[in-house]
């Protein structure tokens, strides 16, 4: 077997910021910067030469890890390991528990998961549906400009900005339903998250139906009728074929997962 090693050119500049401000400055406008969080997704890309790093921004010492709660507001730093979410209430806790195995979850980060590129043969970004259902706000930076915006607005441009943290209000109820994975290292082929805010707002979102997680607004509009909501959810997605499942299968299963989530939310209300 040929030896594999990370594709580091002599010209690769390794940046190791020691604070959030330094990370924002080092990221700059993001041009030619490969951001390395836990490394679980990016490092294999570099090892197998799928990507090359002109500048590698290693965030391990940037102080972006940690979970803070102020009142009902929860803020999770981008470098927080996925494993730290596992004990949290649904949809986040069970969604995080459905990511890889204990060791990968302990190394992979929330920011890395949310900002992952589309997979080569499978969807990535398992946590996206849970954070979308929670109505999370993304705090990110580019060219020194720090902004907050809804996660659903951030996701399409997640590779152009440096995610610093995500925050959300604790829901009054939450639910998660995903397809079982044949092995701990498979990405989630399809999953649905739901959350009800303390003001009664209900959000539904899916992972595995496109390049990144999507809100299921059509399903939310008829959420009182879980069967109708399940069918309505199909208007919000464009399922595709990949190595994990066909578009046809996803079309058949999505309504089922939506129904399960809404039923679970009803039971916990």
């Amino acid at each position, binding site marked *: 077997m040929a030896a594999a090693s990370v594709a580091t050119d002599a010209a690769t500049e390794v940046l190791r910021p020691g604070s959030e401000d330094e990370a924002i400055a080092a990221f700059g406008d993001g041009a030619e910067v490969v951001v*390395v969080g*836990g*490394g*679980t997704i990016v*490092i*294999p890309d570099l090892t*197998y030469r799928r990507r090359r790093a002109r500048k590698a921004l290693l965030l391990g010492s940037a102080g972006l890890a940690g979970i803070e709660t102020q009142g009902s507001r929860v803020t999770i730093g981008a470098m927080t390991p996925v494993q730290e979410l596992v004990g949290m209430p649904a949809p986040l806790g069970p969604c995080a528990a459905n990511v890889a*195995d204990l060791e990968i979850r302990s190394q992979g980060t929330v920011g890395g998961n949310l900002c992952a590129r589309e997979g080569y043969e499978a969807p990535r970004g398992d946590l996206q549906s849970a954070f979308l259902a929670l109505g999370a706000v993304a705090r990110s930076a580019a060219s020194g400009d720090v902004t907050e915006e809804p996660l659903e607005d951030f996701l399409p441009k997640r590779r152009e900005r440096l995610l610093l943290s995500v925050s959300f209000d604790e829901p009054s109820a939450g639910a998660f339903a995903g397809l079982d994975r044949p092995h701990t290292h498979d990405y989630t082929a399809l999953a649905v998250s739901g959350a009800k805010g303390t003001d009664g707002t209900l959000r539904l979102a899916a992972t595995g139906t496109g390049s990144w997680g999507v809100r299921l607004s059509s399903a939310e509009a008829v959420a009182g009728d879980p069967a109708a909501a399940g069918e309505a959810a199909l208007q919000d997605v464009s399922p595709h074929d990949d190595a994990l499942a066909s578009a046809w299968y996803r079309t058949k299963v999505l309504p089922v997962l939506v129904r399960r989530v809404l039923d679970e939310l009803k039971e916990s209300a």
Partner: protein
Amino acid sequence: MNLTVNGVPHGVDGRELATLLDVLREDIGVTGPKAGCHQGGCGACTVLVDGEPRRSCLLPAAYAVGTQITTVEGLGSPEDLAPIQQAFVHYYAAQCGFCTSGMMLAAQAYIDRGGADDPEAIQHALAGHVCRCTGYSKIIDAVAAAARGDSFDLTTTAVGKHTTMANGGAA
């Protein structure tokens, strides 16, 4: 960049973005961590970083600076095997051996966390480790025995067969 491997400090230059696996094997010459899939899928490269199991093929070496890195070479010595190594011998839990160092380090971390001899919990702890010889039952038996704190006769296996230890370690 200084890395402390099995208690010994090593200076390595210009390899911050290289994987810890590459640095251990190619720069430092510690070959217990095996290079299997290079993408975190097999667990053969697992090492302990400050006591926590980590895939060394996914970890930029820079992230291990200032930590204590433990490989299978640091668990015990041929003359004085660690209990988890004795358990693997007694239960014949290593076949081709390629997954063994990663399995044992993950198992050691599980035991150090207070893990019990519960097969389901052991399966959960080792879920990311692939044994292509499919010797999972014996591996789980070995980890359970080590978790119980059993003592091991290294000259015979759990099913009464002689081990290579019966002949002074010669094959």
